[in-house]
């Protein structure tokens, strides 16, 4: 447990990308939990209309226990209000604050600064394989188009956990669904980088979930989708999706399950035709 210090944060100096200005040492440092001095950030910046992104450096003082999102919001509040970053819940439930931190996909709110190396600036970039909005924000339209293709409404209807039977007169225990729709897997996927029609890990995991727990749904369309060229068979088993998933969805394992069902379904249909 690492609660942040209640003490108001000390002022810190922002630095531009050209000159590095040493921040002024605050006179009243907290004796018990001193702020980690001078954390350096290397942040990707791009406004709409810019041909390509550039990096800007910031040096700020952060509270012990602070997350990357805390630091980004502190930069936005005190140094550059124009920094565009998506966020909402602050506890890895909403999936909005996905970025690449030192080249690796992660939720900014779920990444403590103390877990990152200190010898180099912390590099923060927007998610890949998605349309840029500005700075660190990307548009999730393509991600949701893929999820909807994998029959999101069916997935949602199958959310209720089998193992938790609600007592009499309670309608449902639901939301055991792990996927928080953050898009980290799509960003990390090497296939999605080169093939924009590839349906991607989250959607395949969603399809696998529907197939594994069909309830009373017709699985035909979901299996047909998975059998398409840019779907379950396009994956080359890089397993990056499972490595970056902040919510233990394990799309790679789900994909293997899905392939088994697709193959069995294909064989059944082939035999039925004969």
């Amino acid at each position, binding site marked *: 447990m690492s609660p942040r210090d209640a003490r108001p944060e000390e002022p810190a100096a922002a630095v531009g990308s050209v000159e590095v200005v040493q921040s002024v040492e605050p006179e009243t440092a907290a004796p018990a939990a001193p702020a980690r001095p001078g954390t350096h950030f290397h942040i990707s910046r791009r406004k709409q209309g810019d041909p390509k992104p550039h990096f800007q450096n910031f040096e700020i003082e952060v509270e012990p226990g602070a997350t990357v999102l805390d630091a980004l919001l502190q930069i936005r509040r005190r140094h550059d209000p124009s920094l565009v970053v998506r966020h909402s*819940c602050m506890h890895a439930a909403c999936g*909005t604050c996905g970025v690449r931190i030192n080249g690796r996909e992660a939720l900014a709110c779920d990444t403590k600064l103390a877990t990152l190396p200190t010898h180099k600036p912390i590099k923060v970039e927007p998610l890949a394989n998605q349309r840029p909005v500005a700075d660190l924000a990307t548009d999730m339209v393509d991600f949701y*188009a893929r999820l909807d293709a994998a*029959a999101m*409404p069916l997935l949602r209807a199958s959310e209720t956990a089998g193992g938790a039977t609600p007592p009499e007169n309670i309608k449902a*225990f639901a939301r*055991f669904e792990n996927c928080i729709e953050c898009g980290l897997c799509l960003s990390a996927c090497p296939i999605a980088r080169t093939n924009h029609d590839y349906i991607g890990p989250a959607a395949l995991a969603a399809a696998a979930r529907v197939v594994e727990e069909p309830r009373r749904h017709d699985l035909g369309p979901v299996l047909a989708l998975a059998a398409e060229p840019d779907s379950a068979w396009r994956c080359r088993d890089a397993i990056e999706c499972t490595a970056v998933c902040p919510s233990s969805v394990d799309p790679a394992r789900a994909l293997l399950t899905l392939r088994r069902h697709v193959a069995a379904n294909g064989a059944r249909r082939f035999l039925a035709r004969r």
Partner: protein
Amino acid sequence: MTTNDRPGDGGRPEPAPTEKVRPPRPKRARSSAVARSVAAAASIAAPEPVAPPAPAPHVLIIGGGGTGGALAHDLALRGLRVTLVERGEVTSGSTGKHHGLLHSGARYATTDRAAAIDCITENKILRRICPGSFEENDGLFVALTDEDVEFEKQFVEACWLCAVPTKRLGREAALRMEPGLNPNLRFAYQVPDATMDAMRVPLRFMATARRNGADIRPFTEVVAVTMTGRTVSGVRVRDHAAGRDYEIGADIVVNAAGPWAARVASLAGVNVPVVASPGVLVAVRGRHVNMVVNRLHAPGDGDIVLPQRLRTVVGTSSWIADDPDELAVRAADVELIVRESAALVPAVARAEVTATWSAARPLVQAPVPAARKRVATRREAATAPAAPAPAGAGRGLARDLRCFDHATDATPTEGFVTIAGGKATTLRAMAEAAADVVCSKLGLALPCRTTDVVLLPHSAWYSA
């Protein structure tokens, strides 16, 4: 196909046949599944707005939280032209950060009867218009101590007066229903609380509003309110995504900035008695309860424990902050919250803390109008003129929604309305109160239709 035919984003209702979701296509069609899905999402029918008076008046909403989103939906349904601006991502203020609790009203029944009635009313409406967005898991109010036992009579009577249904459970029955509870509990009351996704319920309002023509612009910060004399004529905004400033004209500007309402109002030279009252919340790893667990006592710190997917969220505390942007996560509060909630659900004490954060409630620092004390109709009470603000702090304040038409201020300002207070559960009611004021100022008799219109799923917000 109407929205009623489409399963919700967590839909337990009868799902539509899959063909409706993804229409079949001829063999060897060139379009990808993704392209088809985009086309299918665009074809979801939204409820028709009423015929607008021509030309429809333009309302500009400041603030993309639950209230602003619900207001955009309400006004768009009434046929008005709507633009909403939000300085960050939508729901990035207080809205996304709350527990994710759909209140039954039981928590407020003993301290704020009007708020409790609003909660149970809206609880029923939201379940109807957001099918699938709620875990219909109910809540428990758990008595642990002699003081809690003494509180029982007051609690039950207050819930009865507010029409919040309660059911008494003995110790064994409560433990059967929720095995994660402290086994030393005395008894519990079951109430129709529920858990929800703090971001995705407001997104459904915004998705539906946009489908009906509302223009919702995230990353667009209001830097000035443009005025002609004491009449507000629009706003000047900074588009952080494009890096440029521009003006938006409006017939009426509505300030729905939550705990930032006083700061936004000051841009128009208007005083609004809204303060930021933050509370600390803590998320721990593991799903230690399946129901919303409350302590059976007057609302206090660390007395709500609820499940969010595979984590458990506990909270909260309460104080008054000077600046809603600079919210400390007070270490003492974290300890207090974990200790108090562990008294209800012992597993919380042993669980790994995965996140601690603060969220600011927008509290109206004005005495409840006399009409409100009689439990008047929501509209009458919400629009009653405010009396001068007294000093107050935290939980002592009325938590009610209030709508200020600044044309009735001591120094009148025309064309400017503030909606403030309330809770996440009452977002639709806040929107209705504000939209009624807006329509009455515009001289339009357009009825509110949001109680019956089923909202689009949250994923529709992200459709191209």
